[in-house]
């Protein structure tokens, strides 16, 4: 992380006092009380913030950001603190702006199929607010009972249903956002698309570097009439991958399409048996949802494809309890792997699905090289791979080895045409790998966008970008001396 700025640290008393004027009962500044904020879900990194402030109104957020700008102090926004990439990791010289008190559902508008909420409302609380009427909010990150919708917007969170229903970015209609300096902007509303630039689109997934989200309007969908699962076992990962490819090539977009390797199957069966085939080299869960007529047609087609692709076991859920049981193992995968641990690191790369077999083979070679074990769960429909690297933090050097192994895996993902992160974000975790995917010009163009929102780099600095450039430096144009002739191209 960037070295703490002494000029900020020496102003701490004054900063605390200014914040107390804005939010009299919402400033946390003793070391003991700040301790709970020292990390997010990437617990490898810990840092006490300069001070924590917990505003309750957008006006307070605006005043806080104005004061921060005036005093040249950094700000780290935080929702529920469930980021797996250190997106809300505090800085020693930054105000931690906690949005947990923004916890109200402001408006449910069934007729326009949207809900207006404050950013601290949890993902699953939105669904809970509307499920009695048969609706739900589609993106379902696995931390959904805890993670906040503001954090979901910041990270463009996904989940297991996003091949069919999209990510956060495909399910947002409106945002209220406060810029560094205190400007409050309202973007979108209950209508679709933006005139001029799609700022909602670019704020979504910006990891808290562009603005602080103070209100979100999300789209809600009617629950599918029915959903059924198919549990498939295959001799190898390659066979499972081929089946997934064939399902999609034949025009079927399942609501969920997950895959697990042998190590994961063994881990969940040891943790809490749920009837997964122990002899299989890979397991595929296909969930089809929609009207009963449609689901019945598609179930038969998928079963047919699976048999032709060499499935060694095939079970179709006959009732809701069975469908949920199919999922229970997948949903337990992380704690199950944790149980054989003692520690694990959850990685998050995306690859072109055709490269799956190659990537897993290379990963096995790397595992042998590092002397660490790895288990894989895979959002097979969209190519999002979650390797879980097992290590023992009490063994000297093991954490470092696990981190290095993780970095190698992500570089491998990029090498085969994939990306560093599918849904967890860059944060601090993958920051230094950004140059594996982007060249200097690509990164500088992204930083220039940052300058349009936050020219002093005060909002969540040290995340996403490996090196920080001053905006003035980025603004300089390399211009050839004198005038260039226009190139001699075909014309008409």
């Amino acid at each position, binding site marked *: 992380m960037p070295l703490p700025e002494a000029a900020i640290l020496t102003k701490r008393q004054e900063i605390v006092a200014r914040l107390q004027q804005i939010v009299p009962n919402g400033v946390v500044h003793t070391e003991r009380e700040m301790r709970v904020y020292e990390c997010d879900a990437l617990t490898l990194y810990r840092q006490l913030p300069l001070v924590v402030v917990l505003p309750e109104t957008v006006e307070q957020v605006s005043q806080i950001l104005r004061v921060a700008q005036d005093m040249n102090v950094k700000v780290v926004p935080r929702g529920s603190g469930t980021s797996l990439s250190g997106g809300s990791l505090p800085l020693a010289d930054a105000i931690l702006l906690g949005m947990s008190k923004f916890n109200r559902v402001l408006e449910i*508008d069934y007729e*326009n*199929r949207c809900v207006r909420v404050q950013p601290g409302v949890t993902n699953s609380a939105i669904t809970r607010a509307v499920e009695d009427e*048969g609706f739900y909010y589609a993106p379902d990150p696995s931390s959904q009972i805890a993670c906040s919708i503001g954090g979901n917007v910041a990270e463009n969170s*996904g989940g297991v249903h*996003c*091949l069919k229903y*999209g990510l956060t970015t495909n399910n947002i209609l409106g945002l209220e956002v406060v810029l560094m300096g205190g*400007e409050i902007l309202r973007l979108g*509303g*209950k*209508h*679709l*698309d933006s*005139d*001029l*630039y*799609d*700022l*909602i*689109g670019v704020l*979504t997934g910006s990891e808290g570097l562009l603005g602080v989200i103070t209100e979100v309007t999300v789209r809600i969908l*009617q629950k599918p009439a029915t959903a059924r699962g198919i549990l498939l076992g295959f001799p190898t990962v390659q066979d499972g991958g081929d089946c997934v*490819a064939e399902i999609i090539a034949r*025009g079927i977009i399942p609501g969920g399409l997950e895959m697990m390797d042998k190590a994961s199957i063994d881990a969940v069966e040891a943790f809490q048996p749920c009837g997964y085939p122990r002899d299989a080299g890979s397991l595929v869960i296909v969930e089809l949802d*929609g*009207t009963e*007529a*449609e689901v019945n*047609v598609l179930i038969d087609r998928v079963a047919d494809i699976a048999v032709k692709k060499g499935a060694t076991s095939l079970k179709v859920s006959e009732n809701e309890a069975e469908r949920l049981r199919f999922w229970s193992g997948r949903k337990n995968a992380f704690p199950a792997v944790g149980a054989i641990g003692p520690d694990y690191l959850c990685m998050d790369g995306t*690859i*072109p699905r055709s490269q799956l077999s190659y990537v897993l083979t290379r990963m096995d070679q790397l595992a042998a090289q590092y002397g660490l074990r790895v288990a894989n769960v895979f959002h097979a429909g*969209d190519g*999002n791979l979650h390797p879980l690297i097992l290590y023992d933090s009490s063994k000297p050097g093991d954490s470092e080895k696990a981190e290095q192994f993780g970095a190698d895996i992500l570089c491998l993902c990029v090498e085969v*045409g994939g*990306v560093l*992160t*599918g*849904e967890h974000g*860059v944060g601090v975790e993958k920051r230094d790998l*950004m140059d594996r*995917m*982007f060249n200097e010009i690509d990164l500088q*163009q*992204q930083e220039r966008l940052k*300058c*349009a929102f936050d020219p002093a780099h005060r909002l969540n600095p040290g995340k*996403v970008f490996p090196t920080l450039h001053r905006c003035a430096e980025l603004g300089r*144009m*390399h211009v*050839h001396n*004198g*005038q*260039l002739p*226009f*190139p001699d*191209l*075909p*014309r*008409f």
Partner: protein
Amino acid sequence: MADLPSPEQPAPTAAPNEAAAMDILLPRDEKDVLAVVEAAVANRTPLEIMGFGSKTGLGGPVTAEKCLSLSALSGVTLYEPAELVLRAHAGTPLREIQALLAQNGQELAFEPMDHGDLYGLTKNDRIKGGTIGGTVAVNASGPRRIRAGAARDHLLGFQAVSGRGEIFKSGGRVMKNVTGYDLSKLLAGSHGTLAIMTEVTLKVLPRPENEESVVVSNLTEDQALALLRMATGLPYDISSFSCLPEGSLLGLARGPIAILRIEGPHLSVQKRKEEIITFFRKQAMFAKGQYDLLQEAVSREFWSAVRDALPVTAISGQVWRLSTAPTEAAPLVTAIHAAGVPILRWFYDWAGGLIWLCIEPSTDAHAEPIRAAVDRFGGHATLMRADDCIRAQTPVFHPQATALAALSQRVKLAFDPLSLLNRDKFGKNFEPRISDPKSSDSKPEQQTHNS
């Protein structure tokens, strides 16, 4: 090539003869594009960016000294049906991509509108259906917008040349990717004002095997819209929701109609259409409705007409496109009527969320009363068709509040600091003031954005 539409009518500030004689540069590859922009930067030459020019009628008339067409930068570079991904040079004809996808039972699920009817293009111009780059640049969409999204939701990544004269990329070729800012969202709908996309990577999807539509008539317009809104919340996976008022074209209307589209495997479509009709017959409000069906071929034809806004584009007049909350659709149209705007025809798509209006031409396109009404009900209004001289005076895109407009301008300058790309596309008032050390040299284009 001679059939291409003539270059945009010049804005009043440019000398007409100069613009009429404007060359169209045809870069053959990305390096050519870069060379053009580098020269433009060095010479401070504003550029008009286009594909085949099928959508030059959208947006303010561009002030430019040179025109750059990406039409020679063509071809699909990657297509993997089983991974639902296609990559193509920006100048690839949309029709070519659609034909390739159709061979594999796939399509661009966002059903990009064809602007041919709207802008009265000749048959020759329409064969290619514009370029894929242009389709993305205007964030095109169609009747499936609610379910399937717009171009923005399908652009996975791109490569482009910025107004700084630098090649950069963003995104990738995979569905799930949060690595760095999602610049794809920003470039989709940027109308060529940020960077020149040279290659785009898109998510493609299976084309539904069958489709049919349920037409409900013998309703009032309000009832038809209420039916559509209710339909968006039913678990029958209806994919499009349109309402045509009395007297609309398309030969269907006996009074206002609501029309719902059902797509999927044959058995499923048959079952669902019955369920839908049964459901609405049971609702007191819609019991008097008459329920008819459109079979496959007629249904496809109908929805492509809705996609291209045929009910309003087929007659002459100025055309507006309004995006609002579905519940506000009828009150908004009523308010625009009440403000004295002479509406010739209108219809609704997206369950009321999209309103197309054709109005009697006037010198200001009645922008003020229309936008005042839209501001009252929420949403935005885009002037889709009007003469160049009117679009040069009247903002085509919905004016933004001061702070938001300032941010949009800063975003523009982050990509195109000299405002060389499609200058004035977003209107003269949008053009940012540029602090350029070289601006003291008295090049005429420097004056336009200070005026």
